[in-house]
């Protein structure tokens, strides 16, 4: 190997090393043990919409439509409303379901974010940081529950979704919706403890509850946990999401990246050298 070839190989190898340094850390796992979460007991909810109202107030959003009729139409969170309540008629009477970001243990949106604007905090809430976001909306494509919403009427749009009142939590307060729920349908606490409470409720009133906690295993576990008296499918829940965390869908691909980055250049260089015509003049390609 002459000097030029050595330099070429060395240059490619070091470039490769630089490029692979990052993908090697493919997925950061945050230990899921002490995440905070919210337990939502749909058998207790009376559909008063106080949570919608206080949510708008605390987050500086326009006041929600408090007409009783809106409970009958199926709504989803919007860029101006982080939390909505939908009503469902079941054999156990009207059931109201609060819907908002689930704060997954391993969120697809955060792993999709190329600037870490969408972030799973160590405390549990998944938050969005304005100064980092590019507005590429890959989080929206990735979220299995379609929770991140995009302000398409603004020249400097935000990604809007429930952040579990992140600012209030840091001041030692509870999420606004939990604190103001008159029916005690919402409960804030450590996720592990909420699971104990939820299981105890099912155990004590086993005929009143469906024996499943939505969010215990869905998409690898979520911060928001639901109890229900009627089947979750009937209450508008997406029950097809599986129990595998969504970021795992891309790990295989991301692990292949450093392999290709290391092997390809060496292979291509060898191939090029071995097919080269001996008479060919080098140094004037292009």
């Amino acid at each position, binding site marked *: 190997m002459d000097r030029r070839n050595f330099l070429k190989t060395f240059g490619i190898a070091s470039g490769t090393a630089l490029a692979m340094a990052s993908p090697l850390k493919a997925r950061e796992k945050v230990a899921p043990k002490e995440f905070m979460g919210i337990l939502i007991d749909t058998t207790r909810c009376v559909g008063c919409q106080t949570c919608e109202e206080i949510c708008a107030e605390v987050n500086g959003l326009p006041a929600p439509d408090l007409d009783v009729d809106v409970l009958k139409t199926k709504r989803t969170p919007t860029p101006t409303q982080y939390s909505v309540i939908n009503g469902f008629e079941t054999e156990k009477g009207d059931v109201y379901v609060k819907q908002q970001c689930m704060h997954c243990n391993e969120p697809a949106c955060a792993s999709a974010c190329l600037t870490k604007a969408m972030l799973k905090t160590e405390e549990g809430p998944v938050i969005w940081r304005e100064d980092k976001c590019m*507005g590429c909306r890959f989080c929206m*494509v990735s979220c299995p529950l379609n929770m991140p919403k995009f302000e398409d*009427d603004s020249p400097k749009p935000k990604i809007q979704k429930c952040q579990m009142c992140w600012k209030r939590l840091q001041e030692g307060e509870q999420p606004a919706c939990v604190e103001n729920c008159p029916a005690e349908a919402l409960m804030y606490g450590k996720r592990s403890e909420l699971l104990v409470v939820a299981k105890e409720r099912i155990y004590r009133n086993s005929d009143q509850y469906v024996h499943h906690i939505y969010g215990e295993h869905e998409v690898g576990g979520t911060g928001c946990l639901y109890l229900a008296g009627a089947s979750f499918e009937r209450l508008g829940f997406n029950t097809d999401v599986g129990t595998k965390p969504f970021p795992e869908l891309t790990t295989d691909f991301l692990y292949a990246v450093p392999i290709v980055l290391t092997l390809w250049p060496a292979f291509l260089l060898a191939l090029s050298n071995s097919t080269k015509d001996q008479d060919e003049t080098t140094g004037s390609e292009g």
Partner: protein
Amino acid sequence: MDGKKGSLSLLTSELKRFAQFLLSELKPKGKIVTPFNVFATIVLAVAAAILTLRFIKGLGAISHFSQFHPWGLWISFNVITGVAFAGGAYVLTFIVYILHVKKYHPIIRVTVLNGFLAYVFYAGALVLDLGRPLHVINPIIGNSFGVSSVMFLVAWHFMLYMAAEFLEFSPAVAEWLSWRKIRKVLGTLTLGVVIFGITLSTLHQSGLGALFLMAKGKIHPLWYSEFIPILFFISSIFAGLSMVIFERSISNKVFRRRSSSEVIRTNDDILVGLAKICAGTMFAYLFLKLLVLVHGQQFSMLTTPWGYWYLTEVVGFGLIPCVLFTWSVKTKNILLIQISSAMTLIGIVLNRLDTSMIAFNWMNPEKYFPSWMEIEITIAVLVVQILVFRWIVNRMPILSEPPIWAREHKKTVEKIQPIRIKEEQEAWKVSII
């Protein structure tokens, strides 16, 4: 003292000459009022108005993006389809610089130029699509490396690949500016840059597919599989080459005067060769598609409306052009090659749009159809690309021969092969028998 003054005045006069040269090159060549130019002017003027509106009022004012269809035509067509079409550059550089197949050398520059422009303008379209375009530098600088994101990989690869393609193309710029020494240095970089570019292309062509891995449950099962990255990569090979065939068929007429005799003479032969590669890779791609279908046990879905649409894409604009390519190679029918390449391009557009747009959120009753303004901007991006392409081809040695000083000095000494005595004897023996 005198020497310094002399070199200074030389420098200023050189700069003056250079500025004059640039100015003269900036002037349009050829007729100004042509149907295409009039069309281009109108399209660009309308696009400017739309973009002004977009940056004042937000994306919602001009597009039909929604909360369930966050990516519209710009991403699906300009970025995801466009990058597949630009794949010809890495495939041809592989053939010419790695495998040293000289046959394709005459069209390497025009292909790399096309690829480079495609990336520049599609990345440009991506910036228009970003909600907060000023933050586009965030993944490059600062402490915000979202390394677990496929988008992070794609963004970095786009950027690095653009630089690599510019370096691959840069000898032509140096020749245009008569920078002999720089041309020499750039020439030595080519192999390294080509290797880097092919590696990057492998990863981001498949990475564009990997973007949709987390959209499981949103994309119709006929289009979603864990093999999307591999399917995207393989299809980028024949998508890129079909684009080269398409471009050649047009450029060979439009830029005939600028083309060297070598480019014109070898054109048909090159097209047949490319068609052969297309047919082979398409067969591999379709076979993998079939495996995915069998593996997913999705045959029952083929008889639904989505299934018919899937068959239109895979059979109508996949299998049929694959067979046509094979047939046209056998009969050396150039027209048929061109028809097959056009059909393949449609097939790729369908595949990319199906994955990212049409079959995306297929269960949601709310459907997405691009607004006329989105379509207008998409056309405007293509028009700008064509204009820049034309400007460069008319000035730099892309299709024409490079200046004499830059041509490869082939060893003219003919080698006299000494005939060994043994062989001579054997030859004699054979003739005696």
